[in-house]
């Protein structure tokens, strides 16, 4: 078993799946020769050749659109969008075609493609390099949306995504690409898409988070436990489809609910989760289900970003408010 960070876990998984399945092709801007701006695809072109791992011109609509065609004609494309902020030129392809081909052709064609993209803030970056757009994808029928938060999950979920018969948007919290390492099995394993993980069980409140926010909640929990507040932390892992059962059962047990997400608030995944809790665990609730999210603003550049980012202190504050209700 090797100890890997998130980037290394991606790299290992891609290599493993390319080895196993000659239909897997990995490509995108700067993905081939350079190995990606975050180095997720380092060494793959050397190992598998430039027909299996290649650079594309600067053209997101082109690379996602061609992915649809490659998928229809027998390949398993794993495309990288350099930053999630740059998927927008490809949004037409994703929304109007990637997600619809199966339904449109009544099952004759499917698009088993994975679109990987780093997302999220906290890296002191330029404009368009810090947003969290999971809700945009979650809103699209026909797309699966997955977000790992650890190297272990990255490998298990990415393996599932590549093997999935349908399109998967695989969003990678870039802020924790190299934040920590974890033991990851060398051999192939999968983590099911659509299944959340109870990271820590607790009795007073259910907190749902994903991506980089999981670690922030974990830090908050340390302080809260010292003060006698017992938190059940769920890592959602899949934004769409949501694992309803795990969340509902947890809230039925704890009676309180908080969702923490980095994405802007309005029409965000938090609203979806709260609706779910209201609908299915209403009678168990001891306080209004709540959300701690980004403000409804454009992620500020570095000198204002600290206001936008959610830190453990705010999570603690929010949880105490709910407990005191």
């Amino acid at each position, binding site marked *: 078993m090797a100890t890997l960070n998130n980037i290394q876990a991606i790299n290992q998984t891609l290599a493993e799946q390319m080895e196993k399945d000659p239909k897997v092709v990995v490509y995108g801007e700067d993905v081939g020769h350079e190995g990606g701006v975050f180095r997720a695809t380092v060494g793959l072109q050397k190992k598998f050749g430039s027909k299996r791992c290649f650079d594309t011109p600067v053209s997101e609509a*082109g690379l996602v659109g061609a992915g649809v065609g490659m998928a229809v004609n027998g390949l398993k494309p794993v495309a990288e969008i350099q930053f999630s902020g740059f998927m927008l030129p490809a949004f037409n392809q994703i929304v109007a075609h990637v997600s619809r081909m199966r339904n449109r052709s009544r099952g004759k064609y499917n698009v088993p493609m994975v679109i990987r993209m780093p997302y999220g803030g906290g890296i002191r970056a330029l404009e368009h390099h810090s947003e969290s757009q999971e809700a945009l994808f979650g809103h699209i029928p026909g797309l699966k949306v997955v977000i790992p938060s650890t190297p272990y999950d990255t490998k298990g979920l990415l393996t599932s995504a590549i093997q999935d018969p349908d399109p998967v948007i695989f969003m990678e919290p870039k802020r924790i690409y190299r934040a920590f390492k974890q033991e990851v099995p060398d051999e192939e394993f999968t983590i099911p898409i659509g299944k959340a993980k109870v990271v820590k069980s607790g009795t007073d409140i259910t907190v749902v988070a994903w991506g980089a926010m999981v670690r922030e909640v974990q830090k908050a929990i340390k302080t809260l436990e010292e003060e006698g507040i017992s938190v059940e932390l769920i890592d959602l892992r899949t934004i769409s489809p949501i694992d309803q059962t795990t969340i509902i059962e947890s809230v039925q047990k704890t009676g309180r609910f908080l969702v923490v997400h980095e994405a802007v608030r309005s029409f965000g995944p938090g609203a979806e989760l709260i609706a779910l809790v209201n609908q299915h665990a209403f009678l168990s609730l001891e306080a209004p289900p709540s959300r701690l999210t980004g403000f409804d603003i454009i992620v500020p550049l570095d000198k204002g970003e600290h206001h936008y980012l959610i830190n453990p202190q705010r999570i603690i504050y929010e949880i105490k408010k709910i407990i005191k209700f």
Partner: protein
Amino acid sequence: MLTKKYDPLKRKKLTILDETGSIVEKTLEPELSKDKLLEMYKVMLLGRIADIKGVQFQRQGRMLTYVINKGQEAAQVGVAAAMEKRDWLVPGFREFSALLYRGATLEQSYLYWYGNELGSKFNDDVKILPVNITIGAQLNHAVGIGMASDILGKDEVVVTYIGDGGTSEGEFHEALNFAAVFNAPVVFIIQNNHYAISFPRSKQTKTLTLAQKAIAYGIPGIQVDGNDPLAVYAATKEAIERARKGDGPTLIEAETYRLGAHTTSDDPTIYREDKEVEAWSKKDPLIRFKTYLTSKGYWSDKEDEKLNEELADYVTESFKKVEKTGLIPLEDIFKYHFAEMPPHLVEQYEEYKAYLQEVKE
């Protein structure tokens, strides 16, 4: 007409001032006053020094990710110098010196890369759109500005920029077609610096030149030596005059080279040889321009030395002022989304302020 004489399909490239600093096309040498030439040189040198120091500040942890312009000063100042005050500049993200020439202050330009949106708010009389990071989108904005100028009878020409990699985006093609169809007064500048991060120009497109893409849209295109400020100036001047007369858009490919990394986060040794960089260093636009100015008797080594020192101090002082700006006030991250802050934003702002107050106590 330069665009007739320098046919990109035949890979005819316009050079007026060659890399040794000699005029190779005497008849084409633009008639520029001493003052104007020196102004161009000074902004190029300022751009160069600010760029080198920008990278140093970044290495010292005082600046964020910084986009490096070194080597591309002629492709920027040559263009900007050909514009009139009433004309618009619509940049991508690698036009530092063009912005300086068109009236962005050094402090503003630095402030942006320092991570403060105020760096995109230029002075009232400065017609520059903010830096655009999403490759390609800016070109269509430029087209629209040109259309508005036409519809409103404003007599303004728009100059816009993109990189060699950017020519692969759909918006590049849509913008050229739009500009052509609407006969918009727009000059498109491609700064072909030979790389899109790690991806070389030679693989980006099958065409021999980028300038020849103009032909598909029915507009003139020309390739110029982008390290030759005079060629860049002359081609832009002609294109702007054409646009102003109502004869529509032009595509100019300025062939240059990015001597530095893509940004401070990039490691160019992965994708290019030092030898290549050395060869291009010999074509440095500043060296040839200085030689030219000196041979004309407009400039001397001594003056150059003095200017270098002055500008270095000016750059250091400007950056210190930028550093004093500190953090962005909370209100500013909320208040610019709409003319008036809607209730839900007011609520989020007030709630967060109350929270900050409470945890402070």
